[in-house]
């Protein structure tokens, strides 16, 4: 096979993109290791006169740790809910023959088109009525619900790739659906499972809208909301704010370093194949 010639147009574009991505990241990282005074007088592009980690330490002592733990709890719970309900659903969609299951699948396809913004008012109503306003569980439930359509689509796709012969072989052994699910379906859809875990975790970790309207106390604040409030309350402390941005992204970045493939697949959701 002949090697394709390099694509110069796309190559040039990619260099421009490198600059566009690099500039704000450069400003972001340098701003976090310089003092406020230095940032204001020397500007964001120069190298810091004096390097410091004080911005990070200040953030951590100003309640960022609590925000971090709250977000961790929300993320863990959302992933748990998704893992609990989506695999059985996807299994039923792929293997059941009932009409009801077909309708459920269509319901989730429809759900792909519902933007979270469209339901924040009724969600506020329902969560308040249920007495869950300003509780983390009130953020967890809608966040998990809005992860379901994409997760279902991704996992259904993965489970469809399991060959029918394997099901029949297990059926001949008289295996119940539960045993087929445990011994065949789950082990063979590991790729899909890791994609939906990453997708749900990212949605929960980066989620902003539901926490914004469904919580108000410091004790239930998640990192995105913490960042937003930092900006509205101490907007002038740019190094402090940007350090908090870096801290909030750190876990995602660690996952990116160690599990890039799963992360990329999880990110693209429906699109990634």
């Amino acid at each position, binding site marked *: 096979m002949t090697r394709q010639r390099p694509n110069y147009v796309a190559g040039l574009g990619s260099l421009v993109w490198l600059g566009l991505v690099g500039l704000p990241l450069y400003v972001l990282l340098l701003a976090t290791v310089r003092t406020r005074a230095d940032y204001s007088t020397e500007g964001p592009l120069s190298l810091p006169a004096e390097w410091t980690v004080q911005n990070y330490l200040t953030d951590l002592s100003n309640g960022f740790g609590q925000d971090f733990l709250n977000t961790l709890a929300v993320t863990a719970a959302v992933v748990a809910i998704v893992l609990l309900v989506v695999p059985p659903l996807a299994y039923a969609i792929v293997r*059941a023959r009932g009409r009801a299951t077909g309708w459920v699948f269509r319901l989730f396809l429809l759900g792909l088109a519902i933007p979270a913004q469209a*339901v924040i008012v009724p969600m506020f109503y329902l969560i308040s009525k249920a007495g869950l306003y300003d509780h983390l569980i009130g953020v967890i439930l809608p966040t998990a619900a809005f992860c379901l359509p994409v997760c279902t689509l991704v996992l259904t796709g993965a489970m469809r790739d399991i060959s029918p012969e394997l099901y029949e072989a297990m059926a001949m052994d008289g295996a119940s659906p539960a045993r087929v699910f445990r011994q065949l379906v789950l082990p063979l859809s590991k790729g899909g499972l890791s994609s939906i875990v990453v997708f749900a975790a990212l949605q929960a970790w980066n989620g902003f809208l539901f926490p914004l309207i469904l919580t108000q106390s410091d004790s239930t604040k998640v990192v995105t909301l913490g960042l937003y409030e930092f900006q509205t309350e101490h907007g002038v402390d740019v190094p402090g704010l940007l350090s908090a941005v870096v801290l909030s992204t750190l876990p995602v970045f660690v996952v990116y370093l160690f599990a890039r493939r799963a992360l990329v697949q999880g990110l693209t959701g429906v699109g990634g194949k």
Partner: protein
Amino acid sequence: MTSVPKSGAGVIRPGFVWAAPAALFFLLFAIVPLLLVAVLSFTHWDGISEPRFNGLDNWTALVHDPVMIQSVWITLLLTVLGVATQTPVSILLGVWAAGHQRNRAVLSAIYFVPLLLSATAVSLVWRAVLDPNFGVPSQLTWLFGDGNLLGSQSGAIAVLTFVGVWQFTPLHALIYQGGARAIPQVLYQAAAIDGAGTVRQFFHITLPQLRNTVITSTVLMVAGGLTTFDTVLILTQGGPGTDTTVSAFHMYQKAFKSFDFGAGSAIALVLVVIATLISLAVVRLSGYDRMRGTTEGL
């Protein structure tokens, strides 16, 4: 050896009970709210007392609300600008990332960093970078003039569009990368034998072959554009004045700042209807719904 049963025969299949938990959960936290938003749009509700029906009051107020009408146009404008700017950049980047250049893996690891940041983080970083007094414009006055990019409507819309490109291009580039990798190499080999150069190959093979990917990506961009919220809230607060007040932001302010939740619901319903209609139109016009496989566009 026993005879192999025909496909389906004798296989115990999972019942509806396997689908029920997810279905109930989704019904309760996504479908019920969607129906409730329609009901609430016919009520007066201040968030404290019980909602009470007020007929068409919210709707008549809505059609006479100049900010609402303006917000629909701004939302559509930002959506169109978003598709028009993100699509070419994503295609170039995606096709490039699908190739086999040296350093490609390292570079694309950097390129896709915007994906990792939450919309909140992206908006806050750009707010700092573009700050007229302490940001980059104060350093590069030859390029930015007085540097107050968010001080005019056109400037604010340009910034929102640009930040949208920065934020969403990596995702769409990944989708295009997948699409470009699926194009059979034999097409390029045939074109190369016919003497077609890279540019001609791009326009005559790559682009036509990416047709379905363009549709998938465009539908996602339209859905994202119509619900623009975080960037507006953090970067422009809908301003200057109400110049960048998009519908989702207008809804948020009506409901959670003016405590007029009925009016907010009406705006939300308008958003849902517009988003659904546009998505359907894109799918219809492109013939996406007549495609054979469900994965063809991916």
